[in-house]
């Protein structure tokens, strides 16, 4: 069996993947104030995973990332919906958001918004969707 020696690819991947993941998390968290957000963040995370799949093969990555990406779709949707429903508890209409500033010992003053929770839902869904599509089609022979 032909086995290519893709040492360079694998080595760079292990570096790049982490940078990509970090960038993705940045995009997600920074979305409220600078360009970015759940959607791009999700896509970026997905591209990091795809890169890992490409260089290490599906079986290997499955071992280190034992995630069924299909379940991420309902989880993400659930987070988004629950965020919306949560506003009922405060006698507000569906999907009302609020925000506030809190001071934490290590980080200093930080803005926290409920919109962030919603964005996380978007993030998880997009990640699940992208991975499901790509893996399904890629696995199909």
């Amino acid at each position, binding site marked *: 069996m032909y086995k290519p020696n893709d040492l360079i690819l694998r080595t760079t991947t292990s570096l790049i993947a982490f940078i990509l993941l970090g960038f993705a998390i940045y995009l997600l968290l920074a979305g409220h104030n600078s360009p970015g*957000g759940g959607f791009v963040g999700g896509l970026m995370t997905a591209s990091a995973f795809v890169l890992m799949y490409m260089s290490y093969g599906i079986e290997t990555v499955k071992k280190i990332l034992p995630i069924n990406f299909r379940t991420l*779709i309902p989880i993400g949707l659930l987070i*988004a919906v629950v965020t919306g429903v949560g506003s009922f508890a405060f006698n507000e209409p569906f999907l009302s*958001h609020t925000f506030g500033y809190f001071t934490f010992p290590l980080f200093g003053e930080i803005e926290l*918004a409920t919109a962030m929770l919603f964005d996380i839902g978007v993030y998880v869904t997009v990640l699940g969707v992208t991975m499901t599509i790509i893996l*399904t089609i890629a696995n199909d022979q």
Partner: protein
Amino acid sequence: MIFTVLIPLLLACFVPLISKLKDKIHTGIFIFFIPFVIFLYYIQFVGSDFTTMKQTINWIPSLGVNFNFYLDGLSLLFVLLISGIGALVVLYSIYYLGKDERLGHFYVYLLMFMAAMLGVVLSDNIYVLYTFWELTSISSFLLIGYWHFNERSRYGALKSMLITVFGGLSMFGAFILLSVITDTTSIQSMIEQKDIILNSTYLPFILVLLLLGAFTKSAQFPFHIWLPDAMEAPTPVSAYLHSATMVKAGLFLVARFSPIFSSYEWFFIIVSIVGIITLCWGSYMAVRQTDLKAILAFSTISQLGMIMAMLGFGTDLAIYAAVFHILNHATFKGSLFMVAGIVDHETGTRDIRKLGGLLTFMPMTATLALFGTFSMAGIPLPFLNGFYSKELFFDSSIHLTSNGLSSFAEFLVQVIPYLAVFGSIFTFVYSMYFFFGVFGGKNQLSLLPKKPHEAPIGMLISPIILVLGVIVIGLFPNLVNGTFLAHAADAVKGTVAEELHILFWHGWKTPLIMSLTVVGIGIVLTLTRKKWAGVYRFIPGKLSLFKLYDIVLEKLNSVSKGITKQYMTGSLRLYVAIILGVTLTLTFITMFATGGVTIQFDNLADVRVIEVSVVFIMIVAAIGTIFARNNVAIILIAGVVGYGVAVLFVIYRAPDLALTQLVIETVSVVLFLLCFYHMPKLRKRDETKSSKSINIIISVGFGALMTIIGISAHSSKWFDSIADYFIETSYKLGGGHNIVNVILVDMRGFDTLFEITVLGIAALAIFSLVKLKKNKEAE
């Protein structure tokens, strides 16, 4: 009153239960009492001191649709006919239909029909009338197709259904117009407001639509073609529906609405002409027939035409004659149908060429037929009711006036008496043909499937009663005159007129001379009938309306099939071309017709070099996709366009969009490549020049359209943008500086929620598509 309509319907539900006992007791015996009791109930209203009656039960009051029942002279006449002949027909059917028939079905349909017919004649509400009207069509359809295993029965049932429902729907249109104009749903209040209707601009439509309904139901020319084919029904049905009741529903309708239209000239012209033509054509065609029931069917058509013509004349005398003849026709035609049924039942054939000389075998039946046919022919004998009404018909036809009418109507007035005599001559001929063809001449027993013998007495009771009616009315015409015919005539006219006395002997006046002429020429024609056979066969020959109906029906099918085949080819390419072409044309027309195209050059930004160069690259790439031959090349070049868009987003300062566009473009290019890996190679499209040029026209046109829409939309800003609101409140309310993101997750979070749902569904759909395909392969 209302219960007489609803009780047959209600009891029809129990017929299936009773019909379980049919081996012991014939179902018809139970059924007989229903029309009989109704008849007894209504007979109490007969009398010279009759007054109209009203009864209302709410159904849909908010729409004005209620069971408004109204009993006047006209409805009373019809109600008595329906219930009286209904009872006789049920009695007759007990002996006619054996216990091996599906009696439950028969009587359910019959009761349904009876209730519907009672509803038609008693309703004062046009919508309720229409409801019952359609119910008669449906139940008649079921009754004609009673022997459904017979192909001719199904054909006849379908034909009658199509024609009568066509008329019914036309009538419905007239009803809607009427109720919109007069703002009422009651016929009586419409009659009160007849000035409004007569001055309405819709009057011609109302009249034509209404008459279409009446003419189709009453088998008037050229809609008579369904009636001869309806003769496939069992004979009791033919006797009941197609001589006495349903075919008179059209007459009832015309009579009911004639107080409104009688002063309208076209009512006279249309109804008289159609009636007279039907009279002549029907009686002529009857002579040609060889089947007993077909003769009677055409005879019914012709007699109905005669009544219709009289209703069209609209003079006091004519209307009186019309209601009189409705009654007379029901008596003698009902009995004749029953006679035909007896002959069929006892000899096994209805073909008049095989019959003959049955007088000695069936003396009773022959006597009944004698009275029936002679009355139908209008022979001047003082005990035949047909003569009186025919005499009145002649009388009214020569007393028509054309005061202040158009020259055409005047011409019509001149011609009608001659046509009346002409039609009546053939009436005489076929009546004699019927009687002497069956009972006279030599017998041809070898041709008959059964040995003929007299019918059982039970079968004879009903025709005997009807023939007794013929004779009693013939002997004492004034018996029915003042008691209820006068009321009926008054209801048709809308006014109370002087009572008319019917006399047998008028003296030597024109009507009598006309009658004698008819009898004279009729005898000559009857005796020399064999010599005329060639003529009867020649006209109408190939030009028959029956064939026309078949051709039209067949053409309707084949043409619509052809049209559907033209555009429903199954080619997606064609469908897309049609959708885009139609969108294109309609949008262009709308835009130019409403002045939607505006092009303004103020309020434009400066064009920079970098924008021009990016757009140039994109244009080149886009054109490249059209001409590229290789799949992968097309995908990659399309990717160039996508990245170009991303660059444009950067230039136009939309970082979020640029980011997303970049990643999405990459993902979709990858997916495209994955998909095309599995796909077969694109076949070279073999396109003709014309389809290619059509494609070019559509695509260029659509591009131009979108460009124009874009420019016009930009040039015409009617309202201020709401963008300022978002800019101002993004931080204050949303707590974020990234306005795009705040809009997406906060201000318009609802949209986003469903967009990610769409994504999720798409992913699951792709997953299940791929997996399902695998499972199928495994099987």
